[in-house]
Structure formats: C-alpha cells, structure tokens
C-alpha cells in the first residue's frame, strides 16, 4: 500500500507542476490568439488546469494528513471556483476572462498553501475570499453607473491621509511595525485599502495636469505626505509601493521623463536620509547585505526563506514534505519561499509569470481606454499590484531588502486578499467600460457624416 502511495504522491507532485506550466503558457498564448473561439478554448483549458490542480493539491494534503475536514474544504472551494467562474461569465460576458482565471488560479494556489500551513487560517481566509468575491461582483456595476465617484478626488485625499494617520495614532503594534487597526474584533490594515483610494486620488489630481506645474506640485506634495506617514509608521514596503505608483502615474500623465528622473533622485535622496535617520531602515539594509551576520535575530527570517528556496530545488519537496513553517510569518511575508520549497522553483517561476500576465492585462486595459482618468486608474492599480509582487518576491529571494508585504491573492491576510479582489474588480469594471467606449467609436465610424479620408489607410 505504502509503495503505491509513494508513487502516487510523486506523480501528483510532478503533475501539479505540469498543470501550472500549461496554465502559465496559456495565459500568455491568449495574447497571441485572435478569434473568439480560439480564445475560448484557451480559457477552457485554463479552467480545466485550475480544477485539476486544486483536486491534486487537496488529494495530496488529504493523503498526507488523513484529515477528513479537508474533504469539506475541497468541496467548498471547488464550489467557490465554479460559482465565481460561472457568475462572472454570465453576469459580465464582457469581463476579461484571463483576469478572472488568473485570479482563481492565484487564489487556489494560496488556499492550498495556507491549508497546508494551518487549517484554521484557511477557513478564515476562505470566508474573506467569499465576501470579497461578492463585493467584486458588484463593483463593475458601481464603476459603470456611478460616474460621480470620479469627481470625489478631495474626499479620497482626505480619507487616505486620514486613515494612514489613524494607524499611526491608534494602531496596535503588530510584527514590529504599526500596521493594523482593530474594529469590532477584526484587525485590518488600512494601508492595503488606502492604496486603492490613493490611486483614485492621484488619477483625479493628475488627469488634467499635463503642462500645469501648479497641479503637478500639488499632487506631488500630497503623494509625499502619504509616503512620509508610511515611513514614519515603519511600513516601508507600502511606502515604496505608493512612491513608485505615484511616479509611474506622473510619468504617464505628463509624458515627461525629466519629472520622473527628478522624482527618482528625490526618492533616492530621501532613502539615504531615511537610512541615517531611522534605525529600522539601517537594520533592514544590513540584514539584506549579510543575513548570516546576525542570523539568530534580525537575519533569521530571510535566512530561513533562502534555505527553504534552496531546499526545494527545481521540483520542490512535495506538499507537506518540507519545513516552510521554520520561516517566521511564512504565510504572510514569505509565502513565495514556502511555494519554492514544496512546489519547486519551476512552479514558482510559473507563478511569477502568471503575476506578470495579470500586470500586462492591467496595462493592456489602460492602453485601450481613452478617458484619461480611467487610464490612470488602470495604470496605477496595475503598478501597485506589480510593485507589491516585486517587493515580496524580491524580498524573500534577497534580491532587495525584505519589506514584509504580502503576495497578492496568495499570501494569508484578510486585508490583503480583500483589497486585491477589489482592485481586480475595478480593473474588470474599466475593461467593460472600454468595450462600451469602443461601441461608441464604432457608431461614430459608421456615421456617414464623418470626413472621408481622415486617417484612413488606403
């Protein structure tokens, strides 16, 4: 019996990698395909991959732990996937199916890993995902119907800065950094939501700022206030995300590379200043330079993460065969290392590519939008997402100092997964908006009064 089990587990391990590889390939192949039918096939293949992957993941977990509760978890999540995929498809036939699929795949990987690390957490995470998905189903409607929301720039500025300040003043200290507020028994991280509000605020401030220096200075000042508050509350990862997001949005809004260079220089100068002013910044940097110098204390987390990645090798140890729990805060900060250890580097590289595919889709949507405000929102949200992925994966692999941000949709953390679901939903809403826009274009083009010859290639 146990022989069969060993063989089966080994086979499942490689099958999971193969499924992920096929999925990843499809998520790029779709960009090349034209024709609705060919694309439908791609999306169908992806959905099959997701379900098979989820089944195998839970099968392995079940065989390893023989915990009957896992059967319920599996069924609940399979149902969730089926509902999400079907609901989006039927309620929003024009939604980007690539984004929905990617969202489901990343959530599935996250849920399998969180279940493997702690079944208590997985239940909690699952309910938040369900709530977030319901919210995500409503958001596209809100975007389409309530256009006055785009005019509330100053409300966003006040809300964003207010929430961040509230954290500094009233937050409890968790994990060494002041991040969370507790409201009615729920601890949540305002910075995760302020990210979204911030993108809307900046879009409002910059969408008509081209060539208007006063507006640019105002927007820059307000963005700097956000970043400063985050640095003071020692949330360096978020500070960096806000900073880069602002710079990228500024660049897209003004098309001026000099402004961005000046911003980068100012940022570099501020970083040097922060290095000398704040001891927590110095600690992060020295740990990054040599994690083993203070192995037992400050270097412990990153050392364990690196050991985990190395221990996994190309194909991983297999689920429940490694020891990712040796990494402190593995489910929040170092999920990527846990994935590398148990599912392998090949799988992890595919995961990076899936995240990249999401980002490209975000930008693709921004490119297609003609409304400057929405363009900036799509770009800003895309940048926020990509920066966060870069910071967390770069941090756990010691490419850059570890800042302790989550891997969106994969890491454990209610605020993180909820805000990312909202972010994806907003972009979905924008995607549908641009299809509306195109329809209007279409009408215009078919208008016989159009001046002939204008821009028409022969």
């Amino acid at each position, binding site marked *: 019996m146990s022989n069969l089990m060993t063989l089966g587990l080994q086979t499942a391990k490689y099958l999971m990698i193969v499924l992920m590889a096929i999925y990843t390939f499809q998520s790029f192949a779709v960009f090349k395909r034209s024709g609705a039918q060919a694309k439908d096939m791609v999306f169908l293949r992806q959905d099959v991959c997701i379900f098979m992957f989820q089944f195998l993941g839970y099968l392995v977990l079940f065989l390893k732990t023989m915990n009957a509760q896992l059967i319920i978890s599996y069924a609940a999540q399979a149902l969730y996937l089926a509902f999400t995929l079907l609901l989006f498809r039927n309620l929003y036939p024009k939604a980007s199916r690539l984004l929905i699929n990617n969202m489901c795949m990343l959530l599935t990987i996250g849920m399998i890993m969180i279940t493997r690390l702690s079944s208590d957490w997985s239940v909690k995470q699952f309910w938040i995902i369900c709530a977030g998905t319901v919210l995500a189903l409503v958001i596209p409607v809100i975007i389409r119907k309530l256009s006055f929301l785009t005019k509330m720039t100053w409300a966003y500025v006040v809300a964003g800065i207010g929430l961040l300040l509230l954290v500094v003043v009233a937050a409890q200290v968790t994990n060494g950094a002041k991040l969370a507020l507790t409201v009615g028994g729920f601890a949540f991280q305002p910075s995760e939501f302020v990210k979204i509000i911030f993108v809307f605020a900046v879009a409002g401030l910059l969408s008509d700022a081209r060539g208007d220096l006063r507006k640019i200075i105002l927007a820059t000042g307000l963005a700097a206030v956000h970043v400063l508050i985050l640095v003071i509350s020692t949330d360096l990862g978020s500070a960096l995300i806000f900073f880069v997001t602002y710079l990228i949005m500024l660049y897209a809004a003004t098309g001026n590379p000099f402004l961005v260079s000046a911003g980068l220089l100012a940022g570099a100068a501020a970083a040097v200043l922060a290095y000398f002013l704040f001891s927590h910044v110095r600690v992060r940097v020295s740990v990054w330079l040599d994690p083993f110098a203070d192995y037992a204390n400050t270097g412990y987390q990153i050392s364990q993460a690196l050991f985990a990645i190395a221990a996994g090798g190309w194909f991983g140890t297999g689920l429940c065969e490694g020891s990712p729990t040796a990494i402190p805060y593995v489910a929040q900060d170092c999920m990527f290392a846990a994935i590398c250890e148990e599912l392998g580097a090949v799988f992890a590289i595919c995961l990076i*590519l899936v995240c990249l595919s999401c980002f490209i889709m975000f930008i693709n949507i921004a490119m297609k939008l003609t409304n400057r405000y929405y363009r900036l929102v799509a770009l800003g949200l895309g940048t926020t997402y990509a920066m966060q992925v870069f910071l967390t994966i770069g941090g756990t692999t010691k490419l850059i100092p570890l800042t302790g941000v989550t891997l969106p949709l994969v890491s454990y953390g209610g605020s993180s997964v909820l805000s990312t679901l909202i972010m994806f939903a907003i972009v979905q809403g924008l995607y549908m908006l641009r299809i509306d826009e195109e329809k209007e274009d279409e009408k215009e083009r078919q208008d016989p009064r159009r001046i002939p010859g204008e821009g028409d290639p022969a």
Partner: protein
Amino acid sequence: MRKRDKTPGGFRVREIRLDTTEQPGGSPGRVDREDRSRNTELVIVTYLFVLLFALLIGTVVWINTIGHGSLVSNVNNTKKDSSADKVIRGSIVTENGTQLAVTNVDADGRESRYYPYGQMFSHVVGYATNGKGGLEASMNNDLLSTHSSLMSQLRSEENSEKLHGDNVIVTLDPKLQEAAWYALGSNRGAVVVMEPDSGKILAMVSKPDFDPNTISQEWESMVADTANSALLNRASQGRYPPGSTFKILTTLAYLREHPTDFESFSYDCTGSLTRGDVTINCYNWEVHGPEDLEGAFAHSCNTAYANIGLGLDNAKFRNVAESFCFNSTLPTTFPHSESIFRLTSGSPEEEQMTTAIGQGDTLVTPLHMCMIASTVANGGIMMKPYCVSRVETYDGEVVEETKPAIYKELMSADEAQVLTRYMKATVSYGTAQELGWGWYSSAGKTGSAEYETNGTTGTHSWFVGFSNPDDPDLAIAVIAEDGGTGSETAVPIAHAVFDAWYSY
C-alpha cells in the same frame, strides 16, 4: 482585428488586444494614431516591469544554481536534519575504500556516528554533532540525500527500513594523512598536501586537534579553551605571515620586471640593510657575501630580497600577489580564510623591504601556500583544489563527480621553470638540504616567519615545495607554530611525508 507592431518610440511591441467581441472590418485610423502616441509611456512602463520580473526569475534561477551550494551547506541550515528521521547518514570514504566516517546502527535501531581514525582526520572530515564542521558540514546535504533507485527506495519503505544516504568519496590519502599527522607531532600548525596537476587535496592536518567520536563530551571545555582553538582548521583558516616562502612570489615579480637580465643579478650581502628606522638582517646574522639570484633564493638571503623589494614597482608586485588570489577568496568550495597583501604604490621603503621577505602585513593560509607551490610544480597553471572526488549512492552509482579543473595559468612555463630551478637549488645547497638525503628529488622554499602578538614574539617554521620536480607528484605546505627556522622543524616534517609516499 488589427495587430499594431510599431510604436513611435521605436519599440516593437505587439499590442495586445483581448476582445471577446469580433469587430467588423474597417480601420480605426484616427483613433489609432492618437492611441499610439498616448501609449508610448505605458509601453515603457510595461517594459520596465517585464525587466523587473525577469530579474525575479533570474534570482530564483540563481538560488537554484550558483547560489545553491553555499545555501544548502550553510552551517545554520538545518533543513536537511529533518530527513535524518528517514535517512541513515551516508559514509565518508576514501577512493580506496577506507571509511573515515560511518553511521553504525545497532540492533535496536539506534544510530551512532563513528570515526575510525579518531583525531587524525578531525578537521577535514569534521563532526556531525554540536553543530557541524568540515566535510560533515559542507556535504551534509548529500550525506542526508538519497539517490538510490526508486526500486530500492520502495523496497526499504516496504520493509519500513530507513533509506541510505549517499556516500561522499574523498581524495584524501590515509597513508599520507597518517604520515603528516605523526610528523607534525605535538607542534601546533598545519600540513597540506596536494596533487599539483589535478588539485586533489591528499592530506590536510591541523593541530591542536580533537576526537570527533567524543566531541560532545569535550565540547564545553574545547569551546572555552580559546588559547588552543582546537576547532579551528589552521590548514585552511589559520592566517600566518608567510616569511621567506613568499620570496617565490617576490622572485616572480622580479622576473616579470627583468625578463632578460635576471640571470645577471648580483648582490653583495653584508648581513644587513637599513632604510629609515627598519634594518633587515639575514637570519642568524649570517653574511652571505656576493651571490646571484639563485643563490639569494636558495640561502633565503633577506638583505638581497629587501633590496629587490626596494627596486620593485609596488603596483606590479601587488598585481602578482592578487593574481595569486591574495585579498580575495580562493577558487575552491572548501571553507577558508582570505589571505592578505597590503603593499600599495604609495607604501614607504620600510614596507617594501618587509613585504619582499614575507613579513610586513602579509598573511597567508597554509592551503593557499600549498596552491602556490603547486602552481610552480604544474608549470604555472593553478588547479582548483578539491577534496570531494564524487558522491555515490549507497549501492555505488555515481551521483556527482568532481573533475580536475584549471583555475588559471598564472605564470608562463618559462617562469615556472626558473622558479623550479631555484627551489631545487634550495634543496641541493640551500636551506632545505635535509630533503636532499631522500631517494627521490624535491624542490622547495623554507620560511622563518617572525611574528609579534600581544607583546610575545616568536618564529613560525615554514616549508613549501614539491617532490619529483621533473614530473611532480606532491605539493606540500607545512607550518609549525613557534617551530623556529624552516629547516629546523618544517623541512623534516615535509621529509617524513615525502618518505611515506615514496615508500609505498
């Protein structure tokens, strides 16, 4: 549906359209052009993040290739230790099958690590309790991994037996190791023996040593005894002033600056040379009189070499030293300390003189000195030293093999030949004459390295060299702390090791 392949910024991008709706034919010309100019920034941002994500992938690949070895063998890495529940730690065995470390399992399934040679291989083989050291630490991952066939793994599992970890086959030669260990006797110090044309480490002894079989019991007292620091592998991690053995590199630097007229070098040694407040004396206040370069080398004439040092271009001298891996890591995965060379183009004459005779601020590990001797023996080509020749499965299949690898050609064959000639002269009429009594020929350089730490002074005894200069078999470095001159202590030790090899 259109694919637009050009943007005005000169970037070639295939813009990505992801419509589920098919558009009827017709070209949205005007809108397109606006789109293009508006999208330039977005395209650049996309490229930026594609680059950043490529960096992430590169880092993951790096960790699993180049960075992998040092992470899995890191002393703090206990990942593999959990597999000790499932895997019986593999053995460390020499090429001829002598077991150096083996895990015994008794009738009740209790495991114990046994080192048949006790203290003899203590530093190089290491220990597997109280943290880990030596090969037990650096090869931990392999010893606890199993590459035996799936069938035999399944068989073990069926009988609910533990799996067998892979065995590590080392290049060490027990007969040489034994000879070196006995020859070093009660001296503190180290002996390293290498095969010049392959880089195989054949023996590595460091004293004071310890018995890995009983290390747990003695751990507390050993760690407390910082004066002895018995856990330190002096052969690869102890740094000593090289003394006159460094004259090999000083001579090479001189040859480089006088490629045609070095044969006409002459110096009249009066026993001392003074610059500023530093006086260089020949050892034991000897006066060597007029001599050529070979004579100065063979007699290890300090004043002649201090004089050479004054004439050398410091920057070029430093280049020679740094090409031989001073101030950087050695080309080996074996854990070691970096050697130090401090002379710079601005250094004063006093430092030029002391550096040329291997005093000054220069520090070197015995392993490094052995590699330098080995490079001369190998016609100027430095090989990468290694002591793991392969990793095998329990049933003898090769998992991973180390092939001899060239590090670099550090000197020309001609330069190596001149240095070999001088090193032979040292044996035939110079400071290492005792080696001339053997029934084999040899070449080398002695050193008497004076040191001063915390007010106490003394002289370390050095010898570096190689046997059978026509087709070198062994390269060796010997240091005996406080052993006096090279000829007093280090040369007899090298002699004993060579004897052991040639009496096979």
